[in-house]
């Protein structure tokens, strides 16, 4: 082994700093016999793991990225290189200028060696910093292929303990250099990008939901004629059909229907005519009943069960139980009534919607 070092060299330190083999000389192909195969490790077992907690899912996502991303995604490319005839001094300047700690050496485009910052320190110490590179460079080089997964790269860093690997493409051309720091930066970058994508997706979904809710708004607005008993229940029925189609829970539908029906019949029985407006959105149904008079003389009395001013025809038809307003109030989540003798009555009731199966 033609090391650029001496006895003082701390092996571990050196190993961490340079992509130089600590083993007997072997060719890059032999070093990485699986180089042309898709390494089985890369077949993302992490994806199949059953994960529950949010934290675990986060880890899993990083793991998935490590399997998905390739060395070529993380490496620095093109690498800063030198030639065998350059001096170690010029390498020292290169390292300083580019803030790097290892320089691959190319002869006619072929990777022939590597010099690490440790080699430079040792050269300064040994007084041969002005020697040509070829005299001291490490010639036993472990390389990675640009198509390797990052998980494979991490495994190689663990296995060899080096601080960097030169990266070759399928034609054995040096295309980059990779350090553990490059992998971290690459992962962080991708995680950030995915997070941004997720946030953008979330925002887009929220916008769609908002548009949906707007589109979900249905207004049923109908005139109600005084004495028109034949039409009683029509508005209520239309409202119920919408609510049923939306999967609203039966008891919620029923409450809304009773309010609309009682409000409708109130206008038919007691008023000179009026209008019902039912507004349904994603969260609630609002029933507004406005009539043009004559108004309720005593609203408190009208709210009492059993009190009715219904005429004989209405009573004959089963109305006039004096339960209309109390029924509405009981069924509503929000209820208000305003009435003035001579001008009319405005009633508003709201029911909050729950889908069938929603937890109450």
């Amino acid at each position, binding site marked *: 082994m033609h090391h650029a070092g001496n006895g003082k060299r701390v092996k571990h330190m050196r190993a961490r700093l340079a992509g130089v083999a600590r083993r007997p000389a072997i060719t890059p192909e032999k070093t990485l016999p699986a180089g042309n195969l898709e390494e089985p490790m890369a077949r993302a077992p992490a994806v199949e793991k059953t994960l529950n907690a949010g934290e675990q899912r986060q880890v899993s996502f990083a793991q998935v990225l490590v399997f998905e991303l390739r060395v070529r995604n993380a490496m620095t490319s093109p690498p800063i290189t030198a030639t065998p005839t350059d001096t170690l001094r010029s390498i020292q300047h290169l390292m300083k200028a580019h803030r790097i700690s290892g320089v691959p050496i190319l002869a006619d485009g072929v990777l022939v060696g590597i010099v690490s910052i440790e080699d430079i320190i040792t050269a300064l110490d040994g007084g041969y910093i002005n020697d040509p590179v070829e005299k001291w460079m490490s010639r036993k080089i472990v390389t990675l292929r640009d198509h390797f997964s990052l998980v494979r790269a991490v495994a190689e860093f663990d296995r060899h303990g080096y601080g960097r690997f030169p990266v070759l493409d399928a034609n054995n051309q040096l295309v980059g250099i990779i350090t553990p720091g490059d992998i971290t930066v690459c992962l962080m970058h991708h995680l950030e990008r995915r997070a941004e994508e997720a946030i953008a997706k979330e925002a887009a979904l929220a916008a769609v939901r908002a548009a949906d809710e707007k589109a979900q708004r249905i207004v049923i607005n109908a005139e109600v004629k005084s004495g028109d008993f034949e039409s009683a*229940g029509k508005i*209520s029925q239309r409202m*119920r059909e919408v609510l049923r189609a939306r999967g609203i829970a*039966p008891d919620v539908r*029923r409450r809304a229907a009773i309010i609309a029906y*009682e409000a409708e019949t109130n206008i038919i029985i007691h008023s000179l005519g009026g209008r019902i407006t039912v507004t349904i959105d994603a969260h609630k149904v609002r029933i507004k009943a406005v009539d043009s008079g004559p108004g309720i003389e005593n609203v408190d009395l009208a709210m009492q069960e059993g009190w009715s001013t219904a005429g004989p025809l209405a009573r004959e*038809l*089963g109305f006039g*139980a004096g339960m209309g307003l109390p*029924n509405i109030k009981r069924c509503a989540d929000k209820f208000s009534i305003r009435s003035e003798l001579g001008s009319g009555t405005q009633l508003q009731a709201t029911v909050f919607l729950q889908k069938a199966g929603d937890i109450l």
Partner: protein
Amino acid sequence: MKLKSATKLPSILSAVEASPLTDLTEVELTGCYISDLLSDVLANAQPGVLWVTIHTHRNILSVASMKDIAAILFTCGRKPEAAIIAEAVEKGISLLSTPLSTYETAGKLWKAGLR
């Protein structure tokens, strides 16, 4: 009136000497409610009951469908107009008529086990 044992519509027909005005649904009755005041039915009837009334006006169909009432039994031999019977069929509400009074009907339904 609370249900103790579920009863099917055809089985109570003979008990109250009723004749069906529509095809009778096979649903199980959850009980019975007797009232001639629509708001009272709206307020107090449970879904799935047999509603006994003397009213034959189409408002009963609105009330029945609103409360998911499965069947209406008219007493004192009353029968609604054909148009209302047709509407009931459309809404899936069974209609029956009995010559008995509401009081007699109630007693016989109770005795027949509809509770």
